[in-house]
């Protein structure tokens, strides 16, 4: 074996690259596919890095900005929709700039696999006028993030770094780059004209930024990660991000290729060198037709006689992920349009594979024993036959929308359930409007909505599903857990105390696994007006694993399947005619026992 390589996930590669670049501040908010970056920084922290899960992305961006003002290399991490939350500080920070290098990682999620939108951080780069780095693989990301830090520091601007899911969650054999020698942060140097944003300075900064970006376009034409693979054909491919990897798998011999690693500012001179000898170009990219638009502008501006194809022309699909297969098909159609028109028709006529048995769909579900199931069921039972609307939010509990629970009527974005419920109720006051929100989401962006309700006298039943963790993204601590990302003990911020402080007078706290108590609490909370809060407190089963489990007493069971129809718990299965509980999945939450009309389910001790 040659040099020592390690198998590293893309997100960890980004973290290790940032550490080698001398990062001293790392702040973020969890969000798939970005979460593991900050966790990996914490894991490899030698004690010199301030690492924190900030309360949300806006807070992370601002904490990061402060550190970068003081001259420290700073990393801020989030997913693409998190960048929306952080966009207020970001837009202004783009004008102000930084002193220490500041890299903002915003991970995009084509598909989307785990997100609300298919938005494109590269487009955010154009909007905010910030440079964007777009890696194609974990090993490239590891080196590129160091270059992004140097670039940021050299031009005193924050830069965006945009991996996508297939870079974040892929692993590769990586040889770690040498650690950079970075001097200690200088500290904050007062300078009103520089650090205080004013209309007058913003006007001047705007001029400066436009001038700088024009110059950066020239500089980036020489950046080694923007490059041309020469070919002899008159038809070429332009690509970037993970689509570059798919393209290299299938690129026919002799086809020229342009790889774009900095989609903004676009390396125009390099693109002109590539386009000038070609007749036709196909752009392969995910999300927005970002590269395609840039090429169209360049071809127009420079009067280049080249046709540019991609999403805008219908040559590639305009939503969802690319794959080696999709890219292969796109390239074949592009290179041999006549032949492929025929084979496409044939393919459409060909019968879908003959005898494949019907396969079950496996939508994500709440885990067996998940306390959210109990909470939703309690509310459902309490409100049976009454007019009620259930606004949900972002987290595992969005899965409460699935049948048979069917308890999430709206879901928009972080914290929106609390406020949407208020708007719904204002127009339809005879309904009881519930807003479900998880503990981490409550801290991230739920509190403002509660203040809004109390202040405006809006009527809602707030249901806080407190499972003592940020579950969906892999169990990160948050302000209510009493722990930090570094494992240190922290002040434990109390949700009922916050609610009382805001002025919520009716607060019911209970364990959702105690079904009767939970149903009664909801019934009481549903009465009256103003903000009423129910706090369902029970830890996530993945965090505090139970030793208990339940069992169906076969001699008592009447096979009515009420437990299955009411709860949809993955541990309750049918075997032939009979109902059984899978002991490996069951946590003994006992909700099925409460639901069974014949007392046929009981708790047993089961140690493996």
């Amino acid at each position: 074996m040659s040099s020592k390589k390690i198998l590293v996930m893309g997100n960890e590669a980004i973290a290790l690259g940032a550490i080698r670049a001398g990062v001293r501040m790392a702040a973020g908010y969890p969000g798939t596919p970005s979460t593991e970056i900050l966790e990996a920084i914490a894991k490899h922290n030698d004690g010199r890095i301030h690492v924190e899960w900030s309360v949300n992305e806006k807070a992370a961006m601002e904490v990061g900005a402060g550190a970068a003002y003081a001259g420290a290399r700073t990393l801020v991490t989030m997913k693409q929709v998190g960048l929306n939350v952080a966009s207020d500080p970001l837009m202004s920070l783009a004008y102000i700039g930084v002193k220490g290098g500041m890299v903002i990682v915003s991970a995009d999620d084509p598909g989307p696999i785990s997100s609300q939108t298919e938005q494109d951080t590269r487009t955010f780069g154009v909007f905010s006028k910030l440079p964007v780095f777009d890696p194609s693989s974990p090993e490239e990301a590891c080196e590129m993030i160091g270059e992004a830090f140097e670039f940021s520091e050299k031009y005193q601007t924050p830069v965006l770094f945009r991996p996508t899911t297939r870079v974040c969650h892929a692993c590769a054999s990586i040889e770690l780059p040498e650690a950079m020698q970075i001097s200690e942060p200088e500290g904050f140097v007062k300078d009103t004209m520089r650090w205080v944003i004013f209309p007058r300075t913003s006007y001047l900064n705007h001029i400066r930024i436009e001038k700088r970006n024009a110059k950066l376009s020239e500089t980036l034409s020489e950046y080694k990660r923007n490059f041309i693979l020469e070919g002899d054909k008159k038809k070429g491919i332009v690509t970037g991000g993970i689509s570059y990897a798919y393209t290299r798998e299938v690129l026919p011999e002799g086809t020229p290729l342009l790889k774009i690693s900095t989609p903004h500012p676009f390396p125009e001179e390099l693109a002109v060198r590539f386009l000038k000898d070609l007749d036709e170009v196909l752009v392969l990219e995910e999300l927005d037709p970002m590269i395609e638009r840039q090429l169209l502008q360049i071809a127009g501006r420079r009067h280049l006689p080249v046709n540019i194809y991609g999403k805008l022309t219908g040559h590639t699909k305009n939503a969802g992920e690319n794959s080696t297969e999709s890219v292969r098909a796109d390239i074949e159609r592009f290179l041999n349009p006549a032949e492929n028109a025929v084979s496409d028709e044939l393919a459409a006529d060909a019968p879908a594979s003959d005898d494949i048995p019907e396969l079950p769909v496996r939508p994500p579900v709440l885990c067996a024993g998940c306390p959210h199931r109990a909470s939703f069921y309690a509310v459902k039972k309490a409100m049976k036959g009454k007019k009620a609307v259930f606004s949900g939010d972002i987290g595992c509990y969005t899965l409460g929308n699935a049948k048979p629970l069917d308890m999430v009527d709206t879901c928009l974005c972080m914290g929106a359930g609390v406020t949407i419920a208020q708007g719904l109720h204002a127009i339809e006051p005879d309904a009881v409007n519930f807003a479900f929100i998880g503990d981490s989401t409550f801290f991230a962006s739920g509190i403002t909505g509660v203040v809004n309700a109390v202040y405006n006298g809006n009527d809602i039943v707030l249901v806080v599903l407190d499972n003592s963790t940020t579950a969906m993204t892999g169990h990160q601590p948050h302000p209510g857990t009493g722990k930090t990302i570094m494992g240190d003990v922290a002040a434990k911020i109390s949700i009922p105390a916050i609610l009382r402080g805001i002025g919520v007078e009716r607060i019911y706290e209970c364990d959702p696994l105690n079904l009767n108590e939970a149903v009664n609490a909801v019934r009481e909370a549903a009465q009256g007006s103003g903000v009423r809060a129910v706090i369902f407190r029970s830890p996530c089963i993945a965090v505090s694993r139970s030793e208990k489990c339940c069992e169906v007493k076969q001699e008592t069971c009447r096979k009515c399947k009420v437990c299955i129809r009411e709860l949809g718990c993955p541990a309750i299965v049918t075997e032939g005619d009979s109902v059984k509980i899978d002991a490996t999945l069951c946590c003994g939450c006992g909700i099925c026992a409460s639901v069974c009309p014949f007392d046929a389910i009981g708790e047993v001790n089961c140690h493996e």
Partner: protein
Amino acid sequence: MNKNCLLCGVGGQGVVLASRLIAYAAMEKGYFARTAETIGMAQRGGSVVSHVRIGERIYSPQVPVGSADVILAFEAGEAVRCLPWLKKDGLVIADRRIVKPVTASLGGGNYSAEEMTGYLKKHADRLILVDGDAICREAGSSKVLNVALLGAAAQSGALGITPEEMLDAVRKNVKEKYIALNEKALMLGRKAGGM
């Protein structure tokens, strides 16, 4: 050596760890490796697929359709779902059991293990069906299916990784108190793989 391996199952079965162990073993032999994993919302009881690619000039982290040398299936129906990835003459190693999703328990369709294994027998060029139930019972844990499947794969030779190399990868990556259990599972898997 270029090898592509697809691992498929249901969230929570240990698919990710198995893919990492294959990559680790390949890297110990000096090969470049890539993997791609399912993380996030899809893990909650959803179909899970891990890709492992070993060798030179590999760009995509995912195995292209029709090019898997081996499919390691932790669930028979997931093997059927992933069969388009198998290359001609590729090998499928699958647990013969199925895991019923909630949707099936709620009354959707007749999902049967026999139908799945029947389809695999008909369509996979080379197939090893593993009795995961018996292996887990004999090993004394329901959590060792992943390592047992690795044992079968190593025994078959289809990954270019020997049983000894796989054993080494298990020893170096599994928590100390679980090593003996996993060694046993690996051996049971090797027997299932034709030792």
